[in-house]
Structure formats: structure tokens, C-alpha cells
């Protein structure tokens, strides 16, 4: 596929936006401003960015507990996200959901999900609705290597294949389900190898190369739009931070982390864009400073927003 310069720069900007957001969330969590669990996407930005570059607001995604990157890449508003992380009334979910449950159905974001393997059946269901209603929308399911071993994932893929549903399963293989490494949790080298069992395309892609992700996803998404059924794309990537903030990461060694930091998707693209003269140092500074300003605004909005009123505790259970 031929990406325009504008598209590539937009992807770069999205990745940096996710990175700056996540790094700030890490600081705010450490400062005690954000309670609960946060699972950061640092290092994996190319996956959400490359995939979502092919989607519109009419397409659906299901996300994971590590969902901030998916939400930002799908167009989520960082002000509403940050307010939600703070547990504020003005957040995406009025403070009732938190990091693991942010959704924006108007943008086709069917929610982050606290259950590993919770999303795949939902994505197949959204795809069923797209097929049923006869529009050309598709559903994309982000799921991790951990979720790949859940029964729900198998059921969702099998049914999607049987019914030729317009869904693309994007596996983010960061090698670890909390502490358990794929070396111990899987008996095939690639999650994508399992596609054979569903008679669907199974592709392995460098998940730290946003252009490669974008191109592979485009193929799966176009296939889905054309009514040819699902596909499985495995993006090999790595999370720079722990499973959750505060995880000492005793289960992996520093050398491995350093090795993956060498493959960090953002400097890689940045270098490429500088070489291609699509970006200059000053343009990069400008992008980063604009994003920082937006982030500061989001943080201020979150800080200044009120907490939900206790009277709202039992609202929103039923329609």
C-alpha cells in the first residue's frame, strides 16, 4: 500500500501522543493521583497506531486491560480519558469505569476490558451486526498473547470463520501474561500459527514497525470489508514497563528489555522520517510541544473536575 507522507506523519504523531500520555500517567500514578491498576502501552504504540490508521468511526474495536493506546489511536479524547483515570465525574465513564473500562461507542470503541479474553466474542458480535446490517464496517479485536490461550478467543475465531464475519483479530504478542512467558504458555512459536485451525489467514508482523503493521492490517481489514471473513495478525512487540505500574519485573532480565528498547517503534520511525526528510528536528519539537500542551490541558481538566456525587452510586445499572 502507498502511504502518503501525511499519513505517515499522522501515525508518528499518534505514537508520540500515546507515549507522552502513558509516560505522564506513570508519573501521576507514582504521585498517587491515579488509583487502582494501570497497565501502560509504552513500547507497543505501533500496533494500535498502524491498525487504527485503517479504520473510521464507523468501525469497531474491542480493547484490553492495556487499552489506552487503542483508545487514543481510535480517536479517543485524552481529556475524557485522563479524567476517567482520575475517577472524575467528567471522565468517559463518569468515573465508574477507570482505566480498564473506558469506552466511546460513538467512535466505535467498545471498551477496554478487564477480562483477558473478554473482547474476542464481543468483536465477533459487532462484526455479526455489521454483516447483518449490510454495511461495510468491520470489527477489530485487540488481544494479547495471554488472551490467545483463553477459550473465548478460540470460540470467537471459530465462529467468525464459520460465519465469515468481518473481523480482524490483532494479536499483540508482548511475550508476557503478567509473569508467564509465551515460552511456557504456548507450544507453537507464533499465535498466528493457530489460524490454520480456523482456515483463516495468519500473519506475523514486526509489531514495532508501524508501517508494516499498517500494511498487514490493511490487508485483513480490506478482506473483511469485502466479505471474505476474518484474519489473524500477530504483532510481535514488547512492553517497556511492567505488567502494571509497580511491577518489579523479576521475571525478565534487563538485557531483554534493552534489546527491545533498541527496537523502540518511535525512534525507529523518527529516524526514518528524518532520513527521508519528511520531518526535521524542529518539526518534531513542534509536534511534541503541541502534544505536551494538549496533555497538560487534559491533566488540568482532570485535576479540576469534581468527583462523582455519591448519589450517583447506583445509577446506570439498568437502562
Amino acid at each position, binding site marked *: 500500500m502507498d502511504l502518503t507522507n501525511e499519513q505517515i506523519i499522522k501515525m508518528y504523531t499518534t505514537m508520540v501522543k500515546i507515549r507522552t500520555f502513558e509516560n505522564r500517567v506513570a508519573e501521576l500514578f507514582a504521585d498517587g493521583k491515579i488509583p487502582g491498576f494501570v497497565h501502560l502501552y509504552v513500547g507497543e504504540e505501533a500496533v494500535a497506531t498502524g491498525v487504527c490508521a485503517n479504520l473510521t468511526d464507523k468501525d*469497531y474495536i*474491542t480493547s484490553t486491560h492495556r487499552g489506552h493506546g487503542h483508545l487514543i489511536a481510535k480517536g479517543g479524547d485524552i481529556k475524557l480519558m485522563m479524567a476517567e483515570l482520575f475517577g472524575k465525574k467528567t*471522565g*468517559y*465513564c*463518569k*468515573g*465508574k*469505569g477507570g482505566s480498564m*473500562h473506558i*469506552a466511546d*461507542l460513538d467512535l466505535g470503541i*467498545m*471498551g477496554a*476490558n*478487564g*477480562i483477558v479474553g*473478554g473482547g*474476542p*466474542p*464481543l*468483536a*465477533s*458480535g*459487532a*462484526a*455479526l*451486526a*455489521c454483516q*447483518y*446490517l449490510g454495511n461495510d464496517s468491520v*470489527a477489530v479485536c485487540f488481544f494479547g498473547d495471554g488472551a490467545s490461550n483463553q*477459550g*473465548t478467543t478460540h*470460540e*470467537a475465531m*471459530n*465462529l467468525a470463520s*464459520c*460465519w465469515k464475519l468481518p473481523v480482524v483479530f490483532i494479536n499483540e504478542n508482548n511475550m508476557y501474561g503478567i509473569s508467564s512467558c509465551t515460552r511456557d504458555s504456548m507450544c507453537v512459536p507464533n499465535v498466528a500459527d493457530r489460524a490454520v485451525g480456523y482456515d483463516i489467514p495468519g500473519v506475523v508482523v514486526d509489531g514495532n514497525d508501524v508501517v508494516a503493521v499498517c500494511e498487514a492490517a490493511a490487508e485483513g481489514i480490506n478482506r473483511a470489508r469485502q466479505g471474505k471473513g476474518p484474519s489473524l495478525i500477530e504483532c510481535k512487540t514488547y512492553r517497556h514497563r511492567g505488567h502494571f505500574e509497580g511491577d518489579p519485573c523479576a521475571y525478565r532480565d534487563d538485557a531483554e528489555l534493552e534489546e527491545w528498547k533498541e527496537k523502540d517503534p518511535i525512534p525507529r520511525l523518527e529516524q526514518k522520517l528524518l532520513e527521508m526528510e519528511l520531518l526535521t528536528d524542529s518539526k518534531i519539537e513542534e509536534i511534541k510541544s503541541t502534544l505536551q500542551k494538549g496533555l497538560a490541558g487534559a491533566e488540568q481538566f482532570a485535576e479540576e473536575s469534581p468527583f462523582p456525587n455519591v448519589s450517583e452510586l447506583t*445509577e*446506570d*445499572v*439498568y*437502562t
Partner: protein
Amino acid sequence: MPNMTFAQAIKDAHVVEMERDPNIYVAGEDVGVFGGCFGVTAGLLEQFGEKRVKDTPITESAIVGTAVGAATVGLRPVIELMFVDFIGVALDQLYNQAGKMKYMFGGKAKIPMVMRASCGAGIGAAAQHSQCLEALFMHLPGLKVVMPSTPYDAKGLLIEAIRDDNPVVFLEHKMLYALEGEVPEGEYTISFGQADIKREGQDVTVVATANMVHTALSAAEKLAADGISVEVVDPRTLNPLDDESIIESVKKTHRLVIVHEEVKFAGSGAEIAALVAEKAFDYLDAPILRVAAPFCPVPFSQPLEQAYIPSEQQLIDAVKKVMA
């Protein structure tokens, strides 16, 4: 008014609603050509076609989960779980996803789906195909729980369930499928949270669900011969629960016996007993009694299975005890 079986009434509700709303689809194991394990969906495939009546693989998580996903983005799925016992392999999609989504998303989602499921003992189907699990679903915020006892109620409640914008669990006791009764043609709804007084009485309130409503009515007839006037209250929906009708009845009779087929320990009757104890204790002239299954899985052997199911005699004895 035509006579229909309970199963036919449920099918009729499907037909009425599917003709009205093209976004309703039916999915489940063997719901198509086979017509459903208990024949409830027989004929729907011929009438509405494969797009709207979907046979699925044996894949309960995906049946429930795809319904949740499809409902979230605009369809109105009515899915069949062949036996309610199978919820064990699909529960996450129902209670963690469907049940919690609206709340987790700050109110910005609606999940209009119905999960029908057969339940109950009586056909020798043994432990994994016979349980009643209504209390389990009652315990899960975000779900509504419907448990009809007559063909009339089944049709009106299912139409209401399909039109509801929340996930609804619709429990069909399998010993009721062949029960006949008068059912109006066309559409009508029965609002949730409205108990039905199946028999009026003065001396004892018996709250009964599903097939136990019929056990209670039969017991009431016999007790009437002994001069005891029993009021049989059928909640019809366990969530929402019609607190008011139950309390009003107890205020009149001053005695309460609850009968259900699910196990007594932490069963739906425990909630009803607690409700009455909290809100109408001063009106009670006798302790509340519950008649329900013992705390064990449903057995296979016929004498054991019959001993498991609460009997008319057990109910009569309980009523006489609170009258003593």
C-alpha cells in the same frame, strides 16, 4: 382465545417480535432445522431464514458473547442456551460483559438481548442438565431475571424481554413446555416487576415460581378442603422483584411460605424471606418457611430425583405448620 402449550407460546412471542423488528435474530445450538432441544424454535428457520435464525457450533461463550457485541452496536439478539447449566462455560460474557457494560461505561451503552434457557429437574437429565439457577442470576447487577409459569405469562413476558434494553435471562422450566393454556393472538406485554396473584386467599401467602406455582395451586386446592385459604403469589420476574405485592399479601395473611425448585440454601427464597423480615416482620404471625430442593446436585435415579423436587405434600406440611 386459542390454546397453546408453554413452548408454543414462547415460539409465538418470537414470531410476533421478529415480524415487527428486523433487527431481532435468534441464535443457539440446534435452534434451526432441529427446532431447539425442546422444540421451542421449530418453524422459525422456515419462516425467517438463515440470516435471522442461526444454528451455532457448540460454543456457549461465543453464542452469548456475540450476542452481547451485536446488541451493543444495534441488534436485538434472542439466544438460546440449551440448558441453563451450560452458563458455567459462558458466564463471563453474561455477567462481566453484558451485565456490567452499561455501568462501567458510565451509562453510555445499552445491551438489548435475551438469553433463554431451559432449567429444572423432572426428566432424568441428571446433574448437569437439570438445575435451577435463578438465584445465581439474581445476584448479578445489570441482569434481569424472568421465570414464567404459564403459557400466557411466557408469551407476554418474552415480548417484554425482547423489547427491554437490558440483558434479560429468561428461564423456562422444562416440565412446563407441554403445559397448555389460553394465549391471546398477536402482541401483548407483561411488565416486569409485577407479580401475579395466581389464587387469592386469606390465611397463608405462598410465593411460588415456575412449575412450583402449579404445585402450590394444587396444594391450595387440597388445603381449602381442610379450611385453609392459601394465596399463591407468582413473582414472574425475580429481578425486578415485586416487593410490594408480596408484602401486601403477607400483610393480609400474616403467614409466608416460599416454594421453589432451586436449592434452599442461598436460593431466591432467601431473598424473599429477608425482604419480608425487613419490611413486614410485625405482620407475621408465624416464622417464614421455605420449601425447596436439598443442597445437592440433581440426581439421576428416578426415586432420588423425585425426592429432590419439592413436593406438594412438603408444601402442605409447611402450610399446616405455619397455621398451627
